[in-house]
């Protein structure tokens, strides 16, 4: 045993310790990962080779003539090359889908991704030092790393972003989905996404196969094992985790008590901090800064205008649900009524409207957001001085006022103020001012209910 107690930070090893550690092997990769890696590598190699050869016209291409000629002679014809490219691509998608759905799902799980791929503070520090060291500006030691180092993580993040894009655009082109314009954009985006991955891939291949320091990493992708010395030097945090787990099992062996299966770091056997989990903005329990959430909302609103030609809204959707209910009980009344007939004509569903489905989407979106941030809970929002029942009555009354106000104004805070504001509607700004004026004035009267 090279260490009596586990070090908190990487320390200089004695020659003897290093000797022992160099002999011991730790398991790094599951055999399924290794197989998938090499399958993926083969697919990439072949797809890149054929893909570069498929772009042939003088306007688009970048590969030289001789390259196209060699490829054409290998495949017999360019059409065969395209068939090969498409069938291999589809195989690739199917293998990944099977892997994701039935097999080793862990790499699609948020938890695992956050632990293994999300970059934490040490990772950013590592990247900075790595860069400075390459430029010979510093001799500082690299920050300790988890099972994957920051460079590998960055590459993984990029891969996770780009692969769905490559798959989707590939499928669009292969099966001519969504029309000619979509196919044209797919050509461009497919090429761009592949270009991004390839520039990362060059670094990845160099680091994995050529760079001497990382040779054990290369062999671990064949054997699945790395020696402990390499793990200690290059992936200290992971090494520490493995060691902690080992010790817990050893202790369990001595005491006859199995270790708690969950969270080996929950009760660290030594004075070691649990491995820092990267904070994720999506899992954060805090609300987002208003400017960030506002920008997100603004982009959604922009997308809505681009796609739908109208803005977001809420009260219009409520109205349509209500009219649908009225029309199902009394279609004659609804069709003849001067107001309801704006929304209902016999033989035409009042529910076939953007806002109707958008509200369902909004409920799902709210739910998912609340779920990710642990805010799902049956509760009542009220001031400290009032009972639940008072709050319900106020909510109902406020709702009635809001319903009337929204219909009178032909929109609510989302439908008129937000969407109208974005297209500079004069009415929207007048409405907005009225809302804030009434809100601030009413706040004084309502203070004992809220504060």
């Amino acid at each position, binding site marked *: 045993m090279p260490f009596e107690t586990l070090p908190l930070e990487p320390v200089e090893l004695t020659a003897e310790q290093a000797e022992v550690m160099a002999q011991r092997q730790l398991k790094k990769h599951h055999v399924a990962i290794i197989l998938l890696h090499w399958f993926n590598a083969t697919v990439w190699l072949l797809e890149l080779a054929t893909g570069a050869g498929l772009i042939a016209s*003088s306007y688009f291409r970048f590969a030289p003539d001789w390259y196209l000629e060699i490829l054409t002679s290998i495949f017999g014809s360019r059409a065969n090359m395209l068939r090969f490219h498409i069938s291999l691509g589809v195989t690739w998608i199917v293998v990944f889908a099977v892997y994701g759905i039935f097999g080793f799902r862990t790499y699609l799980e948020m938890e695992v991704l956050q632990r293994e791929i999300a970059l934490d503070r040490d990772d950013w520090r590592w990247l900075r030092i790595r860069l400075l060291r390459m430029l010979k500006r510093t001799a500082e030691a690299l920050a300790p790393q988890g099972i994957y180092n920051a460079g590998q993580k960055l590459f993984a993040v990029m891969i996770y972003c780009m692969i769905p894009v490559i798959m989707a655009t590939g499928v669009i082109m292969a099966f001519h989905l969504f029309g000619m314009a979509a196919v044209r954009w797919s*050509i*461009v985006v497919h090429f761009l996404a592949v270009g991004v991955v390839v520039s990362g891939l060059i670094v990845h291949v160099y680091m994995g196969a050529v760079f001497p320091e990382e040779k054990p990493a290369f062999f671990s992708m064949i054997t699945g094992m790395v020696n402990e010395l390499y793990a200690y*030097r290059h992936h200290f945090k992971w090494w520490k985790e493995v060691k902690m787990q080992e010790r817990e099992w050893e202790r369990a062996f001595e005491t006859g008590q199995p270790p708690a299966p969950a969270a080996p770091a929950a009760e660290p056997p030594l004075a070691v901090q649990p491995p820092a989990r990267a904070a994720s903005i999506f899992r954060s329990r805090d609300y987002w800064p208003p400017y960030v959430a506002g920008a997100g909302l603004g982009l959604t609103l922009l997308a809505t205008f681009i796609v739908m030609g109208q803005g977001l809204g809420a009260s219009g959707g409520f109205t349509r649900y209500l009219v649908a209910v009225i029309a199902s009980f009394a279609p004659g009344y609804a069709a003849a009524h001067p107001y309801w007939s704006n929304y209902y004509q016999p033989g035409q569903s009042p529910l076939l409207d953007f806002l109707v489905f958008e509200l369902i989407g909004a409920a799902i979106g709210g739910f998912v957001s609340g779920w990710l941030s642990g805010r799902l809970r049956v509760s009542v929002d009220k001031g400290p001085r009032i009972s639940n029942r008072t709050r319900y009555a106020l909510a109902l009354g406020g709702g009635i006022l809001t319903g009337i106000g929204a219909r009178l104004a032909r929109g609510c805070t989302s439908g008129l103020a937000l969407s109208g504001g974005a297209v500079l509607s004069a009415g929207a700004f007048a409405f907005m001012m009225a809302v804030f004026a009434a809100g601030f004035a009413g706040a004084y009267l309502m203070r004992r209910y809220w504060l």
Partner: protein
Amino acid sequence: MARYAMVIDLHKCVGCQACTMACNSEWEVPAGYARTRVRFAGPEGAFPNLVASPYVAQCNHCDNPPCVKACPTGATYQTDEGIVVIDRALCIGCGFCVEACPYSARFLNPVINKVDKCDFCSARLEKDLQPACVATCTAHAKFFGDLEDSGSDVFRLVYEQGARRNESPAAHPGPNVYYSGKKANVDLALAAFPPRPPRLLTQGRFWKGFVKPLVLGMVGATFLGQAVAFFQQLKKGEGQFDD
């Protein structure tokens, strides 16, 4: 080596669209689309000097075809005989060529989702048959042949009787479909259906102006960076790094 061309006598053509029907049934072109069709110009002028003319719109099998340059996959290409053909197995139906064609001769065949157009009935030529439209033309107004064969009808019509083609001043594609007949007819028909400048779509400009340089630059830069690192590694010797 042949150089195929087609000549249409606008004075003889009666505009019956038999060529369209023959072509559509020969090549299973879906209803509502056509590889060749007769269009009409005029009448113009005042009685008794009225002029009206048919015009046969189809692929012109240009010498220097803009569509071939625009096709990303190389599915559209020119054969040695100067015929512009589409390899359906390579076509992905992106439509760059549709926009590039100055004669609007191309369209997306919605049944097979590939681009479709006249190919001078290449498959019939191999069997020593005339193109379907020529064979079927009720007025014998369509002629097809080899411009390098001085005994052919097209040679006579083009080089001896001055048949004219619908050249695009913007792109100079060099069309190989010629129009003959009364001068007034040809003048009117060519003026009524001028070729449009070849269009390159946003996506194409985006590709050439932004995406291609970006990707090549990115890949080149990382490659260069790694090459430099590799040479440094060689210079230092591997022993330096060994654990």
